[in-house]
């Protein structure tokens, strides 16, 4: 079973951010074919727990589950409204509380919504660098939707193209854990601790 996780940072209900996320999801599911499990994470529902995590350093139960789902995802669709020339604070905070390495090598489709097309480069100037920094594989086509894009053929075409790229990456590039570089995550250490003599050698730089 392939796991597709959708992270939506829309605040209202219904929200155009969620609408865009749903469209991208159905296109991706279609492109992937059978055997896809979709989990949608609405960050609004986790807003308090995300703030608590920033303050206390550990996730509440629901947030912990959401992080676990993202850790195990084969591919991610991340959608945010544009706030003040960038992704929303809530959207950023969610990715801030992920442990190092959670997104390593994961295919991510980035998308954003805003009132007008003037914000469209937020995809390239804010979202893409964020996920590149987190060592995700960002699909070449990002999808931006201004209010008047909904119902427009152009959005459908971009959505289908981005979804196709994500599906292709999920098929071909879903790297097994640990195959990217030599990063060992905390989870790796618990599963298979580095032998002490090796820790001692590393400590002394030998």
């Amino acid at each position, binding site marked *: 079973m392939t796991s597709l996780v959708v992270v939506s940072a829309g605040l209202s209900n219904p929200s155009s951010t969620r609408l865009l996320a749903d469209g991208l999801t159905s296109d991706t599911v279609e492109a992937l074919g059978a055997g896809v499990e979709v989990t949608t994470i609405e960050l609004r529902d986790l807003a308090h727990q995300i703030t608590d995590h920033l303050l*206390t350093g550990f996730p*509440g139960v629901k947030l912990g589950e959401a992080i676990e789902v993202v850790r195990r995802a084969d591919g991610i669709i991340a959608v945010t409204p544009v706030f003040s020339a960038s992704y929303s604070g809530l959207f950023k905070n969610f990715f801030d509380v992920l442990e190092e390495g959670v997104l390593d090598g994961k295919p991510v489709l980035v998308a954003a919504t805003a009132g007008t097309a003037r914000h469209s480069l937020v995809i390239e100037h804010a979202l893409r660098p964020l996920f590149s920094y987190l060592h995700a594989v960002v699909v070449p086509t990002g999808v931006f939707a201004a209010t008047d894009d909904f119902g427009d053929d152009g959005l459908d075409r971009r959505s289908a193209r981005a979804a196709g790229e994500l599906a292709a990456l999920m098929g071909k590039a879903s790297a097994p854990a640990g195959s990217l570089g030599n990063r060992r995550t905390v989870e790796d*250490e618990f599963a298979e*601790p580095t032998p002490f003599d090796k*820790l001692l050698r590393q*400590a002394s*730089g030998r």
Partner: protein
Amino acid sequence: MQIGIFSVGDVTTDPTTGRTPTEFERIQAQVEIAKKADDIGLDVFATGEHHNPPFISSAPTTTLAWIAAQTKNLIMSTATTLITTNDPVLLAEDYAKLQHLSGGRVDLMMGRGNTGPVYPWFGKDIRQGINLAIENYALLHQLWREDVVTWKGRFRTPLQGYTSTPRPLDGVPPFVWHGSIRSPEIAEQAAFYGDGYFHNHIFWPSTHAEQMIRLYRQQWEKHGHGPSDTAIVGLGGQFFMRKNSQDAWKDFRPYFDNAPVYGHGPSLEQFVDGTPLSVGSPQQILEKTLSFRDYAGDYQRQLFLIDHAGLPLKTVLEQLDLLGDILPEMRKGFAEGRPAHIPEAPTHASMVAKAGGGKDSTVYAEADAATGHRAEDLMEVSA
């Protein structure tokens, strides 16, 4: 089972009165709290180590020596000693001296510290945190076990034929615990040496403690120290109690809501539910404490944090009185169903017995190899 308290040594405004103690008041309060702990029959007092405001816990061996001089049975310990930024050569001296002064009532817990800036204050690099903890402890371990050490490493100047003084009391180094919340390398380190492992077990969900303890116990067995259930485990904990549960919640809430670490975050209810913090009647504190064994197994040391977040001395001493009242029941509870082969935490006496009796390990110096002088000669010269 050892039961005791550990103190961070924070100077925090009492949110109910707006009053902030002076350093003098807080330092003296810590001493009063430790003396009270001895009075009610607790086993351990451990001080933190911080080198910046709002803490009063720098110079930990000075504090511990002063407390040791005024207590009878209490074991002096730390929570934690910064093995990253302290020179292991100095640590070896300080804690061996404390052993001699306190008659062996000392052990210590290694940690990496909780603030980044402390590293440069002592000329160290925070990116090397784990590596410093590993190399420095390896040297400290050697200094306490070999009279003459020749050593070369990465983080300090080499040692040539160096003898750390005083030698450990009775030839037995202090027992060492390693504290870490989420670094598996430290659980591995503790297991490798056959040392104790302590999880601070406050502020975070118990799943963190459970995961670390499981790894430590597994590696303890793997490194040949015995079955996993004989590993030496310590846990922290945090409580606030009143005779009536409602009073405990009412009285603790303002301190919780404004506490430096978790204040202005989750509610007290969420925190009690999701972390080892217990608030309520003595009976409720007793029950939650005894439930720690469900995921930690039978363990050796339980320390409580009771003097933080601006709680005034009077309240802290009341907390200790209440703890004293339930202490016999707590000990009884911990003993219930505990298999006979589970060891107690090592003490100076038990380690001396295990070594086949104490031996004086004083190293009497020959003439100084460089100058040919002996101490007596130099005294004659200065006279």
